[in-house]
């Protein structure tokens, strides 16, 4: 047990890889066994990750469960892991959603099951690694390799324009990552020139003094990498394609975990490494965030494809999170991180329900759907819960996150926050209107071929209920009692702001010196 607790992060990260080795010898024809073993192993992984929560000390911002070994001495890169309150919950979210999406794919994934479960578990390794890495090179390695399993998942089991979507997803994110790599190398070299040491240790790199002009350039480089992943409004075009064409499990992971990396990257890397640039550029980024909120909402309203609607709603939600993060107040950042988790739970659940409907109706066109409520009461109730959570109904988790973001941001950007608030109303419009059309619409309006499917529409079976149940429970739990989450997130957020405020004083000094404050 002592060994387990000492190396818990390594064990968690590489357990799925070991699981892959367990799965490899199983005959690919034995699909049931493959699925069950993979799901069971991912459940074990989730339970193991709960130990992190159990032994996490909530009252400190310092990184915990630290592991540090030499990796590449020549570059000063080390195998350096550690988590704070934010990565803790993102890791838990990752392990949970991997289990959920493996469980959800029993019906959807029919061929190449072995490849599928292997890729899912491989993906989990790299996602966990990215959240736990405190060494920039290590982070980058995990970050970029994560693309590969996801790319295969979209390309091999997707629907429609799957190859186009997979390639677009891959190239878009790769281009962003490579520009980000440029920024990382630059910071690494500047640190070397200042101290004479090669290091990728994040905590040491935080202390690099970079001239403000250069910081802005580097911030733009890192911004592109992270913004494409988030995705922020003008860089979002890969998202609807990838989300729509991916299999359900892929969409869940994509929306639930992969989108979090952009925000996490800003929080952990871009802003603390380049604080002055972040402070200078924050107003523009908030504007982009607000544009994203409205744009995502408007585009969602007119979507004809159910899954595409949910995908675009992500653009809107991620806009909220960006606004909260870049408002730079303690409340708004707490809200942003909280909303990050909420988005993973809510949108993950929405994609699961969309997947269930698609499995039964073989269509995702809203106009072909309707009358499902009569056939499947359990599905309706649970689907409604997650729709309302996503809309931000008080008592469910979405409300807390959005509320905190809006209160917090109001202090920094009152006008923009008021505009952003309308995003919640639009969210109600597109989600509830979608729900009404899909679930209650008169089935007689339908086009004939799908009548047949509706007739045999079966309600959720036990496996499917188990799949969504953890998410539904979390929606209520996080909606009624956010304290255990916020208690652990808050110290990290406060520390983050302290680092930033330290620079804010410096930044104000420059402003006064150069006369910027008059302008």
């Amino acid at each position, binding site marked *: 047990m002592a060994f387990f607790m000492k190396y818990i992060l390594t064990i968690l990260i590489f357990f799925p890889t070991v699981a892959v080795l367990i799965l490899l010898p199983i005959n690919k024809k034995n699909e049931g066994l493959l699925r069950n073993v993979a799901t069971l192993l991912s459940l074990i992984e989730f339970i193991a990750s709960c130990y992190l929560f159990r032994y996490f000390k909530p009252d400190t911002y310092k990184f915990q469960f630290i592991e540090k070994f030499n990796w590449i001495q020549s570059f000063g890169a080390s195998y350096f892991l550690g988590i704070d309150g934010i990565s803790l919950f993102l890791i838990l979210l990752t392990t949970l959603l991997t289990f959920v999406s493996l469980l959800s794919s029993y019906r959807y994934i029919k061929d190449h099951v072995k490849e599928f479960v292997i890729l899912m578990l491989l993906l989990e390794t790299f996602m966990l690694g990215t959240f736990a890495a405190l060494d920039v090179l290590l982070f980058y390695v995990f970050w970029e*390799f994560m*693309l590969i399993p996801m790319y295969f998942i979209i390309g091999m089991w997707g629907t429609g324009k799957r190859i186009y979507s997979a390639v677009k997803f891959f190239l878009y994110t*790769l281009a962003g990552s490579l520009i980000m790599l440029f920024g990382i190398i630059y910071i690494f070299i500047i640190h070397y020139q200042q101290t004479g040491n090669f290091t990728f240790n994040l905590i040491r790199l935080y202390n690099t003094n970079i001239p403000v002009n250069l910081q802005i350039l580097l911030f733009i480089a890192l911004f592109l990498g992270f913004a494409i992943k988030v995705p922020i409004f003008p860089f979002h075009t890969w998202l609807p394609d990838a989300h729509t064409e991916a299999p359900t499990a892929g969409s869940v992971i994509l929306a639930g975990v992969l989108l979090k990396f952009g925000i996490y990257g800003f929080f952990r890397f871009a802003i603390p490494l380049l604080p002055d640039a972040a402070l200078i550029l924050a107003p523009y980024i908030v504007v982009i965030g607000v544009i994203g909120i409205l744009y995502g909402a408007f585009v969602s309203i007119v979507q004809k494809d159910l899954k595409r609607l949910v995908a675009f709603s992500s653009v809107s939600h991620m806009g909220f999170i960006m606004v909260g993060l870049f408002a730079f107040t303690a409340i708004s950042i707490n809200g942003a991180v909280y909303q990050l988790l909420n988005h993973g739970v809510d949108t993950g659940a929405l994609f699961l329900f969309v997947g269930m409907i698609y499995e039964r109706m073989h269509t995702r066109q809203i106009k072909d759907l309707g009358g499902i409520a009569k056939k499947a009461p359990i599905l309706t109730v649970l689907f409604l819960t997650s729709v309302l959570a996503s809309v931000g109904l008080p008592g469910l988790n979405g409300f807390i996150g959005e509320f905190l973001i809006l209160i917090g941001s109001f202090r920094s950007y009152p006008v923009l926050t008021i505009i952003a608030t309308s995003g919640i109303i639009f969210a109600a419009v597109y989600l509830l209107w979608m729900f009404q059309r899909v679930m209650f619409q008169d089935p007689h309006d339908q086009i004939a071929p799908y009548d047949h499917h509706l007739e045999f529409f079966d309600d959720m079976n036990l496996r499917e209920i188990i799949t969504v149940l953890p998410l539904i429970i979390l929606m209520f739990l996080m909606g009624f009692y956010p304290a255990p989450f916020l208690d652990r997130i808050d110290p990290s957020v406060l520390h983050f702001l302290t680092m930033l405020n330290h620079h804010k004083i410096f930044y104000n000094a420059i402003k006064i010196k150069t006369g910027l404050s008059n302008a």
Partner: protein
Amino acid sequence: MHNIMPAIYGLNSLEKSMLSIIPEAVVILFAFIVLFLTFFEKIAKSKNSYYLSLIGIAFSILYVVMLSGRNLTGFYGSVVFNGYDVFLFIAILLSGFLTVLVSKDYIENFDLPYPEFYSIILFGISAMMFLVASNNLIMVFISLEFMSICSYILTGYIRGNARSTEAALKYLILGTFASAFLIFGSVFIYAAVGHLNLNSIHTYLENISYGNNGSASILSGMGEYLSIGLLLFMVGLAFKMSLFPFHAWTPDAYDGAPTPITSFMATGIKIAAFAVFLRIYVLIYNINVINFNDILWVLAVLSMTFGNIAAILSANVKRLLAYSSIAQAGYILIGIIGGGFYGYSGTLFYLFTYIFMTAGAFAVVIIFENSDIASLDIKNLSGIAYKYPFISAAMALFMLSLAGIPVTGGFMGKFYVFSAAVKSGYYWLVFIALLNSAFAAYYYIKIIVKMYMPVKEDSNVSCIAGEGKNYGIVNGNISEGIILAVIICLFFTLIMGVYPQIFINFANYSAASLASL
């Protein structure tokens, strides 16, 4: 190690000279042995030549390891053996080893005469080693010609095949031009400085640069000769490195040559050319009249961009890899431009990873060629992953490595050379290179898309229907040798991406002895 042969050390210079070329000599010896096998028809038809070549290469590696740590010069300073050579000899020998491993099936398939083939490969390997070891302009020329002639013969080895013959002829004519440039450049350099030995030239130039002999006036008048000489010399080598304006032979020669030879050209010849260029660069170009880094900058950018654009447009796997090798040459050049200990070490590291990902990719191409796929058109690869799971996974990994995705050696190599360039202040170069990598990823994953994500319409092949067997041994003509080659490449590509420190140390050791010259 040092007390094994102390006696020899004190002896006369011929024995010392012989000691400095033992690794090359071993390969040549085995080349002759293999060649003599052709006299005996019965033996010639068996697999002896194959095994003998492998043994020869293995012996040579053994000698390199035994001699490592020594600084030897031989033949009046025209051949050197030091840490730099240890690294590159091992690289070249491994490349040769992989070439021999993948050749067996291919030449059986095409019914080519065996022992001569292996023998010429061995001669080629020894020529490359001589090229790397040469420390004298004449020696550089001789070994480069030796290497080129071997590669001309091998390129046209498929007798009666129009493509192969055409490729060889093109390669021969263009290659001769390049050699002419090289020798012409040497003449100019000699005219300017009066030395042929690289170390002597280095000392001479250094004295002028630092003004030890009074002033820079000594070079006046000779300065232009030197610049022209160095430029022409660079053209000759750039041809072998297949940098952009001198690349014209690459796609045709790579495409037409027997695939094992393509692999050999893409790995061995390129490494040897880069290695000798790096040595001459460090000794001569680095301290000189015109800023060669600007010229190299342009060459690197053009090679990357051209290689990538052309690769995107090509529909044939072999041709695609040929163009990709031009782009890769551009990336490798960035390390040299970046310069300094860090940059040279990075270049060597990249070269080392480059062997395995390229040789691996070509090995897989050979397997595809040997199996039931008629042409190497990318379209025909549709759904092949379900027929050959292991091979395709390996191919995917090599492609990702060439594209520079982490967990593979390609990423670490790229990271190394790029950070060296940033360190020296070449920000734009690195930026362009990174954009190029993003661009290049498209055609590398195009192959993965075809292998793993077949579209119903273009799958005329039975690949999807056919149930896959592991390890791709389906037709019986895929031997263990080629699978071994793939596994070796896979292993090195992964280990260099996951834990590259051992190889970086090796490259550092090599770069240190290069810089100390």
